[in-house]
C-alpha cells in the first residue's frame, strides 16, 4: 500500500451494486492504475520521505521536545539572572556538574534499552571513590587511583551482570542488593571517613582547575563526558552491540531464538554500566579531591529519571542516548537556576516537580505536532 504495492494490477475499483452486488466476473486485464490510487501511493511515499528528512543524524524527533524544554529553561535562567546565567563560567559549572551524572546516565541508558535496570549506580560510585582514595591505593599514585576506580566499577558491574544474566535474579532486586552491599562496603573501608587525596595525587585534582582547561577554556571533565557520550552514541547506534541491545530489550525471547547470546550480552550491559560508574567516580574525585561513602546518593533515581524523560522506554527496546543526555542537562540546569535564584529547598522541590511535568507535556506536544511521532 505504502509504495511498491501499486503494481499494474492494483486497479480493482469496488463498485458495489447494491446489496445484491455480486460481481462474479474475474477482473479484466490490468490497465493503468486509476488516478486516485496512484495519487494515494505517491502521497504516502512523499510523506515518508518527508519524515525521513526531519530525522537529523543525531537528533530524533522525540528529542526536539526536550531540546525545546532546555531552551525554555535557558530562557528562564537568562531572564531571572541575566548577568550570571549565560556566562562562560556558569556554563562550565553546569556542564561540569552534568558530566558526573551524565556519564552514569550513558551506562544506564544502555541497561534500560537492553531491558534491565541498575539501581546500584550511586552505591558503586561511592564504593569506587572510597576504594580509590584509601591510603593503600594512593600509594600507587594517580595511575593506581584511576585503575582502582575503574576496576571497582567494572567489578561491581560484573557481579550484577553475572547474578542477573546467569543467576537469573531479577535486575531490580539484584541491583538493590548491590546498592546495599556496595554502600556498606564503602562505609566499612573508609570507616565512614571522608578520605582526601594525598599531596602526591594532586594531578587528578588539578584537572578541575582552570590552568588545566583545554585551550584554556574547556574543562577536562566536560571533554571526558563528551567523549563518553560520543563513544556511547556510536556503540549504541552504529555497532552490532548496540543493535543487539535494542533487540534484547525489545523481545528477549526473539533475540534468543535468533541466536543472540542474551546472557552474555546482558552481562556486558551491567559491566558497561559499572564502567561508567567508575569513570563518574573519577570525575567526583577530581571535583571533590576526596572519596566518601556518602557519594552518589540517589544517583540511581536521577539517572533513571533522565533516561526516561529522554524518551527511553522503561521496559526496554527503545530509546536514545541524546535524549538521556538532554535529560541530564535539563535536570542540571534546573538545579543551577534554583541556586542562582537563591530558592529555598522547599520551593526548589515543588518547582522541580512542576517543571518535570511541564517538560513532559511540552515534549509530547512537540512530538505530536511532528508527523505521527509516537507519544512519549
Amino acid at each position, binding site marked *: *500500500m*505504502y*509504495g*511498491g*504495492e501499486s*503494481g499494474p*494490477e*492494483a*486497479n*480493482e*475499483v*469496488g463498485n*458495489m451494486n447494491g*446489496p*445484491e*452486488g*455480486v*460481481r*462474479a*466476473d*474475474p*477482473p479484466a486485464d*490490468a490497465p493503468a492504475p486509476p488516478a486516485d*490510487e496512484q495519487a*494515494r501511493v505517491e502521497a*504516502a511515499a512523499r*510523506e*515518508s520521505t518527508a*519524515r*525521513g528528512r526531519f530525522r537529523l543524524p543525531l537528533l530524533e524527533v522525540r528529542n526536539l521536545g526536550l531540546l525545546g524544554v532546555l531552551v525554555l529553561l535557558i530562557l528562564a535562567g537568562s531572564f531571572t539572572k541575566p548577568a550570571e546565567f549565560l556566562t562562560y563560567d556558569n556554563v562550565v559549572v553546569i556542564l561540569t556538574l552534568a558530566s558526573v551524572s551524565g556519564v552514569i546516565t550513558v551506562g544506564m541508558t544502555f541497561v534500560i534499552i537492553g531491558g534491565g535496570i541498575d539501581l546500584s549506580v550511586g552505591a558503586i560510585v561511592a564504593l569506587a571513590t572510597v576504594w580509590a582514595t584509601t591510603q593503600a591505593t594512593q600509594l600507587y599514585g594517580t595511575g593506581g587511583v584511576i585503575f582502582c576506580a575503574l576496576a571497582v566499577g567494572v567489578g561491581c558491574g560484573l557481579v550484577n551482570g553475572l547474578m542477573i544474566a546467569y543467576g537469573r535474579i531479577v535486575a531490580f532486586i539484584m541491583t538493590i542488593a548491590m546498592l546495599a552491599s556496595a554502600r556498606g562496603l564503602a562505609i566499612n573501608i573508609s570507616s565512614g571517613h571522608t578520605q582526601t587525596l594525598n599531596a602526591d595525587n594532586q594531578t587528578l585534582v588539578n584537572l578541575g582547575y582552570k590552568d588545566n582547561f583545554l585551550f584554556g577554556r574547556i574543562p577536562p571533565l566536560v571533554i571526558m563526558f563528551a567523549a563518553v557520550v560520543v563513544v556511547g552514541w556510536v556503540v549504541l547506534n*552504529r*555497532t*552490532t*552491540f*548496540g*543493535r*543487539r541491545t*535494542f*533487540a534484547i530489550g*525489545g*523481545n528477549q*525471547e*526473539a*533475540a*534468543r*531464538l*535468533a*541466536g*543472540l*547470546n542474551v546472557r552474555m550480552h546482558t552481562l556486558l550491559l551491567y559491566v558497561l554500566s559499572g564502567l561508567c560508574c567508575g569513570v563518574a567516580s573519577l570525575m567526583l574525585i577530581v571535583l571533590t579531591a576526596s572519596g566518601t561513602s556518602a557519594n552518589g546518593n540517589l544517583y540511581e533515581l536521577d539517572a533513571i529519571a533522565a533516561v526516561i524523560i529522554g524518551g527511553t*522506554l522503561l521496559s526496554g*527496546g*527503545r530509546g536514545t542516548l541524546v535524549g538521556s543526555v538532554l535529560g541530564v542537562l535539563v535536570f542540571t540546569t534546573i538545579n543551577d537556576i534554583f541556586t542562582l535564584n537563591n530558592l529555598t529547598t522547599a520551593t526548589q522541590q515543588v518547582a522541580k516537580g512542576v517543571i518535570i511535568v511541564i517538560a513532559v507535556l511540552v515534549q509530547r506536544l512537540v512530538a505530536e505536532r511532528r*508527523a*505521527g511521532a509516537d507519544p512519549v
Partner: protein
Amino acid sequence: MPEPPLLVTRGIVKDFPGVRALDGVDLEVRPGEVHCLLGQNGAGKSTLVKVLSGAHQPDSGDIVWRDDQTPHLTSPTAALRLGIATIYQELDLVGGLSVAMNIFLGHEQSAFGFTRRGEMNRAARELLRRLGHAEISPAAEVGRLSAAARQIVSMARALSYDARLIVMDEPSAALAHDEVQNLFRVIRQLTAAGVAVIYISHRLEEIREVGDRVTVLKDGRTVAAGLPARTTPTATLVAYMTGRAYEYVFPPRTQPNEGAAEVLRVEGLSLPGVFDDLSFSVRAGEIVGLAGLVGAGRSEILETVYGARRPSAGRVTLDGRAVRTGSVVASVRAGMGLAPEERKSQGLLLLDSVTGNVSLASLRRYSRLGWLDRKRELADARREVRALDIRPDDPRRPIRTLSGGNQQKALLARWLLKSCRLLLLDEPTRGVDVGARAELYALIRRLADSGVGIVLVSSEIPEVLGLADRVLVIREGRVLREDDARELDEHQVLDLVMEGSRR
C-alpha cells in the same frame, strides 16, 4: 425477499500515518449468515475488524447497524453493548488470569463488586462445553494453556456476549483440522440462532465449507461484495484478491539426490514427557516435513534440535559435526535457523523496523570489528522485502504497523537472509495469503535446491505433502511412519495421526 441487513458499511476510510489502511470499504452483513472477508496480507481486513469493534475510529464513511444510521461505535465497550463481539487476530488474553476471568473480563458476574466466581466458572464451563472443550478448566491460568486452547478461550469470550454479530479474525490459524470442524459446528449453531458471523481466513477451503457470502478487499477497498461462497470459482476469488489469475501449486520437486550429504542427523533425542529416542536425518537439498496434529510435539522437536530446549539425551550433528545441545548460540553458529511458531512472542521485535527484524540473525555479517554496516543491511533487507513481496515495501517502517501476514513474511526473511545450512520452519505460512503462499513455497524449494536442508512443520497436511520430499508422521512424540511424500495422501496421514485419539 432477504431480511434487512444487520450491518452495512459504506466508504469506510482509515488512515494511519503514511498508510491508508482502508480506502472505501463497502460491506453488508445479513442476520444469520457467515460472511467471509478475503484479501491479501495487508488488504485491511484486521483494520476493518477493529473499526467494527470500536477499537479504531474511521476517518470517514458510514456505518449502519440494524436501523441505526449513526451507531455509537466509539469504543470496544460501545460495540459490545450494541451486540458486536470480536475475536481478534492476535490473541488478546491476559496470561495471569484464569480462563473464566478472561472470558468474562469486562462483563464479570458480580455482586456489589465481588466477583461471583462459582457462577462465572459454571458459565465458562458451559461455554467451553459448547465449543467442545469441556476439559479446559475455567480455573486454569490462561498463560499456561497452549496456543490452541487459548484460541478456544478467545472464542468462548466472544460467545459469552449475547452478540448479534461475531467477528472472527483468522480464528483457525492456530487450530488443527478437527478443531476447525469444532469451530464450524459452533458457527452453524450460532447462525441457526440468527447470529451473523464475519469470518476471516486465508484458507479458501474453509470459506467454501462454512461461508455463505464473500466480500473481497484489496488495498483497503472492496473489490467484490456478496459473492456466493460455495460457487464462486477459486480462480475468480484469487483474481479479485491479487489482481491476477493465480495458480495455487506447489513447486515441482527436483530429482532427489540420493547421494547428497547429510546436513542434519538427530540421534536418540529425548525431551522428557514430550518425545523419546527420536532419530532422523535431513540431506542437503531435501525438505523434510513433520506431519501431525497440533500438540503432537513437533514444535518441541524443532526447538530441541535448535537448542532452545535442553534434551535429556541424544545427539545432534550438523554437516558431520556434533552440535552442543541446549544452546541456541551454538546451533546458530553451526548454521541452523529456526522460524518460530509464535510470531509476536518468539519472533518479532515489535519496536524495531522491518530491517532490524530481518537482519537480526545475520548481524555478524554486517559487522566489521563490531561496526554495523547499515547501508548494506538496509540494502539486503530491501532485497528480501521485494523477494517476499512484503507490503508496504519500505524496510524502514516499524514492523508493528505491518499486517499479521506481512510480519510473518518478514520473519521468514530473517532466515532467508542468513544463509543457513539447515532451516527449521515452524508453521511458516500461518496467516500468509494465498498468493504469497505460492511464492513462499517456490522460495523454500529454491532454497532447498541451493543445498540447504529444510525441516518443515505445518498443521496443514496438504502443505506438508505438497512441499516436502520426505514426511515424518508424528504422534505422541514418536515417528509413526517415514516415507516419500508422494507415497502418502492426506487421508492416510490423518488416519495415522488420529488413531491415538480414537483408541
